[in-house]
């Protein structure tokens, strides 16, 4: 019985077109992901196309979309008998309910599994394709396909099937199933938002019904070599996740699925009929009233009201709105905050939250509502009656379209209500309703509504609603990959427009103009789609598409023909304008063209890389900024000096983007428009030590608009440009080289060289800022519009207004590195003089929250650094806010530009959180020493000297301000970011001292390593070593510092017993695994017994690890309370280093009684091994236990 029902379902579905279509989709997506490099689902970097990790990841991600399959097949099975009106016939047969239901369930389940089997098949066949880069195809492993399939696909599909089958059986409605699908999606999203903190990862991993997060939890720190070899097993949270969900699925299926209930037909809503008012039926009424011409308008309004009412009164609608609210509310738990700190609920963030909350789920809403609404008459059975009414197709089409639009708009409204409530509840009352309106209606809803128009068009052409839904969803997923498929220009991606970045400083910037053009363009296209949609509207189920097309002229009517003509004309003419603006007025290059150009550049010029080039030694620059025009006119008078030992005959210059350049005092030849480069020479060769003055005129201006690559440096309010972007640069620009090793191989380029060898002494006289970058004398005159302030390094020596323009003259009195910024914006300023240094913060008027904190951090930092590392070279320190298009802070001489997105808008009211404002400020101030005083040589490890040392300096200020327990939280973020960073390394992980501009090393690992060393040898000796290093290399241009110098300096202040540890940190990739296995508090003896397991590994650059002996000192710390919880006033009751060796360690520690204010002994509550993160611990979660 079970088997025959199963077989029936199987036979039923494999003949359905939807089975074939979905099989194709689920075969093609993974196939393409492997065979077309641009389409990627998993993998990337150093990981093979067919690595076990990539296979599992692809299967998991597509498993998520398997939800649609389950809805289609399983839920369809559950209620098919009702929908096709077979139930009365079937249920009177002598069928055993349980066997019948279970058989059908299993049949449908198997069908979904069969479709999902296409994923490994597609991956496997894809990996055999001959055009693949053989170096990136690993050996075939059957288990790499089988295990993820059995571990993830089989149970996940079971869980989804069980839930949807149960829901469908119980509620006997497809809508209920859709809502369950959406609900599951919400659970997924909500748990993601709620358990975003590192310590909640277990919850996050276990609560994901798809197992995706469990997988990523277990593989979080996998290195490329592990990804290529290891096959995921039923380990860690994957086990718990699978068990939990199989259990839940079974409960749903057997408990709630009504499998055992006798088969019965759906109950009709048989409300008691109320007797009508008793008066005699009006038999004599005139029933002969006829069609009156001009009924169209009345029909239209009636139909619109009717459709909207139908949508809003359907039981799913309220639930959908609730789900919408939940989706938005779960986003309030802001996981994106810097180091866990929240940002103020600015309207621009609230809008992002709404967009994030709805982006994917809205596609589900559009797909399902469009299908329901378009096919409503057909599915209720009134289609024949309504279709034969004298109503224009247009009326049906438009009223239904409006109904779906109303759903979308109401969802957004729910989002706005929720976010405004959130803003108010968090005490933020600067609510920008006009921004809500513009961003959500014009930038969000309008493109979605165009998608609805497309969904309608597809449904109109489709033979039934399921095919229409599949085609639309298929289109959507393909459109997500358009970029990777080479369809990059927004002119070719329906309803797309250049991305909008909002900045409180600069508003919508250029995006408003582009949005006008692109919306008009796609709107015209949508208009044509609309006309064809209603022209081809299906009246009667047997009206074939062919006959509708044959009669299209009649279907269009005058209105439709006009729409098609107007739409086509507007589409073509606006399209022409867009083409002209984005590709003629402005340069447009696809990413492939850019790669080719990069390769040609390297092929052409790599041979000149080591040619001698002059250094700029004096700059007198006049920069006129015209913010309204987005125009800069700059005249730079430069003194170029030959600091090399060779004569310079000619050298390469690279011209900046968006600019026209004139150079006087030099000869320019061989201008190459492709690379915007040329050769520069002088009348006679520039001999060693000689100088020459040149004058460069730059006009940088923006005309028309672009499709991508907007110039975020030159904007109406918030210009921030540095000299490398504004002026031509000299010498071969290695920054323009292709960096990806695989791309390089394809272009016949040698493997990438990110940095010169640490031991390459010939580079010690080059700066890490650039080969020829040295110290300059600096003077700048910057003018801007009357309401803006212009800023450059140096001190303001003159200021005047003339002809509605402000002029600022800056001069630097100390040597500074040839790296400077020009800024202009409407800014407020707060200034304070502290110990002879003027501290000034320039900020946007609405972002005044953290100005005092920045000033405080600056004071503390200046104090500390001056004391620890030597004098500050300037009399002034300025922090300047710039628009959030770029998210960083950067240190120039006496000047720190600071992005709107970090620091300025952080909500610091919660004292429990890490204070990122204080930290970033301290870090940037530290760069005035590490980077500006101590310039690093152009070899491996250069960023360690600037970034790791700035981290170390900043963390000391943090430690002083916030204490060790809070620093622990900061370090746990750093350790995590390092371990994650190394798992996505695309080339090779380097040891600390050889880091090649790898952020996860020089920032993240740097924090942990430097504090670990300080913990060994003491902060004071380490600071002394750094001070010595600065003194030795301060402003030196002949011999710059390296990490070897740093290591040497540190060793000089350390004891020999610590040499080994320090050397390991510097020259090896060392990882530890420290685990507190058990801890027992023996109150009678005042002792704690501990079992600690320790191991140490050395990894190579690919992440292959080797176990090595360990014998070293490790902190054992006893706390009075949970050290993870800052609310508690946790005290440290015991803190001592113990010598541990690899393997099991058993130790007993004696606790001296510590008394609280009431003179009662404090009971030890938690004990930790290395709780303050002095070791790079692969899993720092298992270091602390409660007693």
């Amino acid at each position, binding site marked *: 019985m079970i088997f025959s029902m199963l077989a029936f379902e199987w036979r039923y579905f494999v003949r359905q077109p939807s089975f074939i279509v979905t099989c194709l989709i689920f075969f093609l997506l993974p196939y393409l992901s492997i065979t077309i490099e641009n389409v990627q689902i998993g993998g990337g970097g150093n990981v093979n196309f067919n690595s076990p990790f990539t296979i599992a990841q692809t299967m998991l991600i597509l498993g998520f979309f398997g939800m649609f399959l389950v809805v289609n097949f399983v839920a369809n099975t559950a209620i098919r008998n009702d929908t096709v009106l077979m139930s009365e016939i079937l249920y009177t047969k002598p069928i055993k309910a349980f066997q019948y239901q279970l058989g059908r369930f299993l049949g449908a389940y198997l069908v979904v599994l069969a479709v999902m089997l296409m994923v490994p098949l597609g991956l496997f066949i894809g990996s055999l394709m001959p055009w693949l880069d053989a170096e990136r195809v690993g050996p075939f492993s059957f288990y790499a396909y089988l295990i993820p399939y059995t571990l993830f696909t089989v149970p996940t599909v079971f869980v989804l099937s069980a839930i949807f089958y149960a829901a469908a059986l119980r509620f006997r409605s497809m809508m209920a199933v859709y809502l369950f699908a959406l609900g599951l999606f919400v659970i997924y999203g909500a748990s993601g938002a709620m358990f975003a903190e590192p310590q909640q990862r277990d919850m996050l991993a276990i609560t994901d019904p798809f197992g995706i997060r469990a997988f990523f939890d277990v593989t979080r720190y996998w290195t490329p070599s592990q990804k290529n070899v290891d096959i995921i097993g039923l380990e860690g949270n994957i086990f718990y996740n699978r068990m939990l969900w199989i259990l839940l699925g079974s409960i749903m299926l057997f408990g709630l699925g009504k499998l055992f209930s006798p088969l019965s037909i759906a109950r009709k809503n048989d409300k008691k009929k109320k007797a009508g008012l008793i008066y005699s039926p009006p038999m004599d009424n005139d029933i002969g009233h*006829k069609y009156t011409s001009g009924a169209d308008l*009345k029909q239209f309004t009636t139909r619109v009201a009717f459709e909207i009412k139908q949508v809003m009164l359907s039981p799913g609608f309220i639930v959908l709105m609730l789900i919408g609210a939940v989706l938005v509310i779960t986003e309030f738990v802001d996981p994106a905050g810097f180091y866990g700190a929240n940002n103020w609920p600015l309207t621009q963030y609230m809008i992002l939250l709404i967009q994030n909350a709805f982006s994917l789920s809205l596609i589900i809403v559009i797909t399902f509502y469009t299908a329901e609404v378009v096919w409503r008459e057909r599915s209720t059975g009134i289609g024949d009656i309504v279709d034969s*009414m004298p109503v224009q197709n247009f009326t049906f089409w438009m009223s239904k379209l409006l109904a779906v639009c109303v759903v979308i708009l109401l969802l957004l409204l729910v989002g706005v209500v929720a976010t405004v409530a959130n803003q108010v509840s968090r005490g933020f009352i600067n609510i920008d309703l006009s921004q809500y309106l513009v961003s959500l209606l014009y930038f969000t809803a309008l493109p979605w509504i165009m998608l609805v128009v497309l969904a309608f068009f597809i449904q109109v052409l489709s033979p039934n609603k399921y095919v229409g839904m599949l085609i639309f969803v298929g289109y959507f997923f393909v459109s997500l990959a358009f970029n990777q498929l080479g369809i990059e220009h927004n002119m070719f991606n329906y309803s797309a427009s250049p991305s909008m970045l909002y900045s409180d400083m600069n508003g919508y910037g250029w995006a408003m103009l582009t949005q006008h053009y692109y919306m008009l363009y796609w709107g015209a296209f949508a208009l044509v789609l609309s006309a064809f949609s209603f022209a081809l509207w299906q009246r009667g189920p047997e009206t074939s598409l062919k006959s509708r097309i044959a009669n299209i002229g009649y279907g269009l009517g005058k209105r439709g023909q006009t729409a098609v003509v107007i739409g086509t004309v507007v589409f073509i003419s606006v399209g022409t304008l867009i083409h002209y603006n984005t590709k003629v007025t402005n340069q447009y290059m696809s990413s492939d063209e850019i790669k080719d150009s990069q390769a040609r550049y390297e092929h052409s010029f790599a041979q000149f890389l080591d040619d001698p080039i002059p250094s700029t030694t004096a700059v007198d620059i006049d920069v006129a900024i015209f913010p309204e025009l987005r125009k800069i006119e700059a005249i730079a008078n430069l003194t170029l000096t030959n600091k090399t030992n060779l004569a310079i005959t000619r050298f390469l210059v690279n011209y900046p983007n968006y600019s026209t350049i004139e150079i006087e005092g030099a000869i320019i030849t061989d201008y190459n428009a492709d690379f915007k480069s040329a050769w520069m020479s002088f009348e006679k060769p520039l001999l060693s030590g000689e100088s020459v003055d040149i004058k460069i005129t730059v006009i940088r201006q923006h005309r028309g608009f672009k499709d991508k690559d907007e110039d975020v440096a030159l904007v109406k309010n918030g210009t921030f440009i540095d000299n490398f972007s504004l002026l031509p640069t000299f010498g071969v620009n290695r920054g323009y080289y292709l960096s990806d090793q695989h791309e390089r191989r394809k272009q016949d380029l040698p493997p990438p060289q990110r940095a010169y060898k640490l031991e390459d002494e010939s580079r010690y006289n080059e700066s890490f800022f650039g080969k020829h970058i040295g110290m300059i004398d600096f003077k700048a005159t910057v003018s801007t519009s009357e309401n803006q302030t212009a800023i450059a390094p140096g001190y303001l020596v003159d200021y005047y207004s003339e002809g509605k323009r402000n002029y600022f003259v800056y001069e630097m009195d100390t040597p500074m590195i040839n790296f400077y910024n020009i800024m202009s914006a409407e800014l407020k300023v707060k200034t304070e003089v502290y110990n002879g240094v003027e501290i000034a913060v320039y900020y946007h008027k609405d972002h005044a929250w953290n100005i005092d904190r920045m000033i405080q951090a600056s004071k503390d930092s200046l104090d500390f650094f001056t004391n620890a590392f030597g004098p500050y070279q300037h009399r002034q320190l300025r922090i300047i806010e710039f628009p959030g298009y770029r998210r960083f802070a950067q240190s120039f001489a006496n000047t720190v530009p600071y992005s709107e997105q970090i620091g300025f808008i952080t909500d610091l009211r919660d004292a429990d959180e890490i204070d990122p404002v204080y930290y970033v400020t301290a870090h940037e101030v530290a760069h005035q020493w590490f980077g500006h005083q101590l310039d690093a040589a152009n070899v491996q490890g250069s960023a360690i000297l600037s970034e790791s040392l700035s981290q170390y300096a900043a963390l000391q200020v943090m430690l002083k301000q916030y204490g060790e327990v809070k620093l622990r939280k900061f370090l746990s973020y750093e350790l995590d970011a390092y371990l994650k960073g190394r798992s996505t390394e695309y080339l090779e992980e380097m040891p600390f001292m050889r880091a090649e501009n790898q952020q996860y090393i020089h920032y993240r690992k740097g924090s942990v390593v430097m504090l670990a060393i300080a913990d060994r040898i003491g902060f004071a000796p380490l600071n002394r070593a750094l001070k010595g290093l600065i003194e030795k290399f301060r402003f030196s241009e002949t011999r710059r510092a390296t990490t070897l110098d740093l290591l040497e300096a540190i060793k000089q202040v350390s004891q020999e017993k610590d040499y080994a540890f320090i050397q390991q940190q510097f020259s090896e990739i060392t990882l530890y695994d420290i685990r507190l296995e058990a801890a027992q508090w023996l109150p009678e003896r005042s002792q704690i017994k501990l079992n600690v397991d320790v191991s140490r590994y050395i990894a190579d650059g690919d992440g292959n690890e080797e176990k090595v002996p360990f014998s070293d000192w490790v902190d054992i710390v006893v706390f009075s309370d949970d050290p993870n919880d800052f609310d508690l006033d946790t005290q440290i009751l015991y803190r001592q280093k113990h010598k541990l060796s690899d393997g099991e360690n058993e130790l007993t520690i004696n606790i001296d009684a510590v008394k609280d204010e009431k003179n009662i002994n404090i009971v030890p509550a938690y004990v930790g091994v290395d709780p303050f993160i002095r070791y790079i611990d692969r899993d720092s979660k298992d270091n602390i236990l409660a007693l």
Partner: protein
Amino acid sequence: MLTITNINKTYSNGVKALDGVNLNIAKGLFGLLGPNGAGKSSLMRTIATLQQPDEGEIQFDNIDVVNQADELRRRLGYLPQEFGVYPRISAYELLDHLAILKGITAKGERHEAIEGLLAHTNLFAHRRAAVSSFSGGMRQRFGIAQALLGDPDLLIVDEPTAGLDPEERNRFHNLLVSLGKDKVIILSTHIVDDVSELCPDMAILGNGKILLQGNPIEVTNKLAGKIWRKTILPEEIESIEKKFDVISKRLFAGRTVLHVKADEAPLGFESAPATLEDAYFDVLKRQRSASVNQEKSLSDTDSFDAKQA
């Protein structure tokens, strides 16, 4: 008034639903008789603009039905054989909605017409109840009411009396006759009595073809004196069928009554008055034997046709 010229329709599954249908229908009630699957509904739906013929033309009062669907719909009333309704909407509200779709824009007119139709279909007492909760017969009456909205000049009713009790059926017949004077009413049915009671003109449809068209009385008269009847035992049927042109077998009180068509009285048969039913069965029988013969003669070319398809 309604002219159907050479309509052909083949469905995508290969079934030929309409095969060279020609009809001329004047004002008044027109009965369309035929067995299940004869193509009645296909023809009705084609006239009701819900599907398009592969070939042929339909003219109604100078409207080209295929290419001017909207114009026809203004004058059309259609009751499909099967239909459902929107959930949660009362009879009055749904009729009101449909009345607007039918183009009765004046509220007063709409109200008057709807109440009148509810009265005529005996649904007035249930006008506030949801149509989705109606029983089969009530729902069928609702369907009739909506078809009559807007006083259509062309009324197409597909199996309208299915599910109606005799009383309601009579009520409906009276209504149709009273309306039939100045409109074209096409009534499809497989109940011969419906046609003989109501229609001055009729056609019999079989296998997508018009087998016969005419006035029921004239059609019947052609068989007058040629119908013979005999009551027999079931086991005798086979031998008689071989000898005579048996057009119908019917049970009466447990025994079989045979009708035979012949110019002279066969032995043992008594004369019977010709009825429309006799004519109907006679036509169907001739059509079936003809198509069997045709199939035999075509069987040689079958394989060729299959390839063509």
